[in-house]
């Protein structure tokens, strides 16, 4: 048995992971090492450009590991990310998450730029101001200009922090596809219940999902969909994330928010221990990321002026950490579970460049701020200078 991983420190392992991603990316995508290209930023600056600038962030809960994605054995699972999106992107091979490895709290941390310490399983608001509040308050944007599309376990509070001293009422509007579906089907979900799968992080705990008048109003007033249209479409999709992407694309068409945040969750089916379902979910997520990218190219409000960020919230446990059970969980806090990647592509981003230097997932918020022209005063992340 190769026990070599035992003699490396966590930092060594993290760097080995990121290097393997870089080498693989360079082989398959002919992308260049970023350090040589640091001088010429293509970012279009200026007030006029910033006003039109849009950003879409896709996080996926239940990070996918290297061996199922960017390593040779995993490449078959991510043809779109690898061959279509990565070559157009600035790719960061070493994104560390030093916070709590639970999906809600980690996503909240990415959205605030601070490692939040809230209870992962409670529907509570983040403690620190979110990127949505910074965006809306500084740029004086209406609530319709920033949206979150999220799975339901606690994410309904992610749009606005409890930091009332910063700017109460400046949060994002949050749309919860499963609640909408539940409302649209009046709770009688026969034929749709595969879209209501929830809470993989604790597979045994499957709470009842309810939607009501508020969700029906969103369906009608925001998405401009009749209940029948929505139900009909829902019948044609096969997973909660597919439903989320459908709603996100509908939002793009109807509301054209400048800051759209989509959290996907199908991959976390890994917590059930079924490897095949985990792989299926990676393949689906790969396809859905490409679908969003294609929507950006075809929607007039987005084409040419939108930056897309794709990042898992964190990784999953290594096969070789005795404290875990490999792909199934993210409980050990080992390097594999704390290390992931990010790709940025679209407006203002260099194409086909890979960066090895370590960044942190909380660095996204200040970077978005610098790109879009708002300040993220309480964020503890650092600017990702490679994107500026």
């Amino acid at each position, binding site marked *: 048995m190769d026990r070599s991983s035992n003699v490396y420190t966590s930092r060594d392992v993290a760097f080995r992971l990121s290097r393997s991603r870089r080498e693989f990316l360079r082989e398959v995508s002919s992308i260049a090492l970023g350090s040589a290209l640091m001088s010429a930023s293509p970012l279009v600056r200026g007030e006029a450009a910033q006003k039109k600038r849009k950003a879409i962030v896709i996080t996926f809960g239940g990070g996918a590991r290297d061996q199922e994605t960017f390593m040779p054995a995993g490449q078959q699972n991510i043809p779109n990310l690898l061959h279509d999106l990565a070559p157009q992107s600035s790719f960061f091979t070493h994104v560390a998450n030093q916070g709590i490895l639970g999906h809600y709290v980690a996503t909240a941390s990415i959205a605030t730029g601070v490692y939040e310490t809230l209870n992962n399983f409670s529907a509570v608001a983040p403690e620190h101001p979110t990127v949505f509040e910074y965006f809306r308050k500084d740029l004086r944007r209406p609530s319709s200009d920033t949206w979150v599309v999220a799975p339901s376990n606690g994410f309904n509070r992610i749009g606005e922090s409890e930091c009332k001293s910063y700017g109460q009422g400046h949060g994002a509007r949050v749309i919860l596809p499963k609640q909408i579906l539940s409302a649209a089907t009046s709770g009688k979900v026969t034929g749709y219940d595969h879209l209501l799968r929830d809470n993989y992080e604790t597979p*045994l705990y499957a709470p009842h999902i309810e939607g009501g008048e508020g969700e029906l109003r969103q369906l009608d007033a925001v998405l401009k969909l009749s209940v029948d249209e929505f139900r009909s479409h829902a019948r044609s999709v096969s997973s909660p994330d597919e439903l989320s992407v459908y709603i996100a694309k509908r939002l793009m068409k109807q509301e054209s928010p400048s800051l759209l945040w989509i959290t996907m969750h199908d991959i976390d*089916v890994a917590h*059930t221990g*079924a*490897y095949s379902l985990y792989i299926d979910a990676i393949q689906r997520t790969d396809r859905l990321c490409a679908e969003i990218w294609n929507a950006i190219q075809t929607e007039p409000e987005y084409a040419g002026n939108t930056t897309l960020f794709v990042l898992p919230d964190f990784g999953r446990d290594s096969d070789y950490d005795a404290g875990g059970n*490999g792909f199934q969980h993210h409980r050990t806090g080992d390097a594999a579970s704390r290390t992931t990647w990010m790709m940025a592509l679209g407006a203002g981003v260099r194409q086909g460049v890979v960066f090895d230097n370590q960044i942190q997932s909380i660095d996204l918020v200040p970077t978005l701020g610098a790109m879009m022209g708002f300040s993220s005063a309480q964020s503890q992340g650092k600017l990702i200078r490679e994107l500026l």
Partner: protein
Amino acid sequence: MLPHDLHAEQFADYPPEARKVVIAHLNTLKELPISFLPGMLKEVIDYDFKFPAERSAIDKDLIYLSSLSQTQIKDLFQAFALITLPPTLEQFDWINLPSQFIEQQSAYLWSTHQMDAFRKAATEYGDRLRAESPADTLPARRLGIAIIGQGVSSYDGALFQNLRQHGTYFADIKPDNGLQLLLAAVAERAKSLPKQYGHWYIDGGRNACQIPTLTCVSYGALAPVRAALLKKIQTQIQRPGMGPEELRTYLARLTPTDVGMDKAGDPVLDRFLLKLLTEGSGTQIFSTTFAQWATREALRRAHPLTLLVRFAPRQQHRPMNEMLSNSQDNEPDLRGSLIDADMGAYYHWINQQRLPGFERSSFLVWFEGHSQALAIGSSFPRGSDSSSGLDLGELVSLAAS
């Protein structure tokens, strides 16, 4: 309550053997930091229901710690002593509820960014203990066997990808009577190397083996227990205030009697089986997950000389409430189960390699009913292919020799 305030009467509610162990080493336990001691008590409190290998490990650790001076103990636990815990945890009844303490401690460590330091301390402590307590010599090489793909008539994908670099791939073995041949080989080992809980047969379906010298576990045989457990889970989920963490705490408190396991007559095995279902994730709903986790836990806890696991098809993925309620019959997911089991076999080998004597162990995985197998061990060149036409009996004999 801090460790140095401990006295024997506080362990009155411990099972008899566990109490004896604690009292015999009380002075040593009093020297340990609170960030560490409840973790040790979590193991000791179940001493009466532990496998012999686990009891031996606890005894060895405590004897070693008791042999150290105060200064040496302070040095050994220095990193744990630097972990800070809030007064609420110090006041918690960690003597009688160590598992619940660990859960709360874990949440606190994550939220205060001390988890990495704790993890490092625990890893270094484990390494040092292993270095100080050499493992016993095994009477024979350890043998692991995984049978995967039950019911799959054909599969175009590549199997054993993670294992190929470690052993020899056989593309043309004789599959006839494969299961019987492998079971016979395991039974023969159990006869010639008698050891309590030393030889296991784990089945993801119905138990295909009635060999009394083997410790037999099957997903199918646990159907009434799973049903009782799932019924309790459903009831709990409906209760106001119930959340994932509360459910986990509730499950941790269940006893075999609570789910109708009191008639089996082996309290150690019953506790083991219950933990598979209450602590495992997905073991209640997917037979492939059950087989993988049972294999891992049997290896980790019982250190068997032989472990044969036969994966069986799992149910299709459905909404969780539907899977939990077992409300509808559904067709098994044969292809998905094969992929799950292929990974499960890889984890079987990894977990086997974590045990003492790993450098001499052997491993065999077979695609049930087919000609594909892979063997790892000193008789099999790494990363090679073989067109040998051995049958499974000959192959396992080669692996075990």
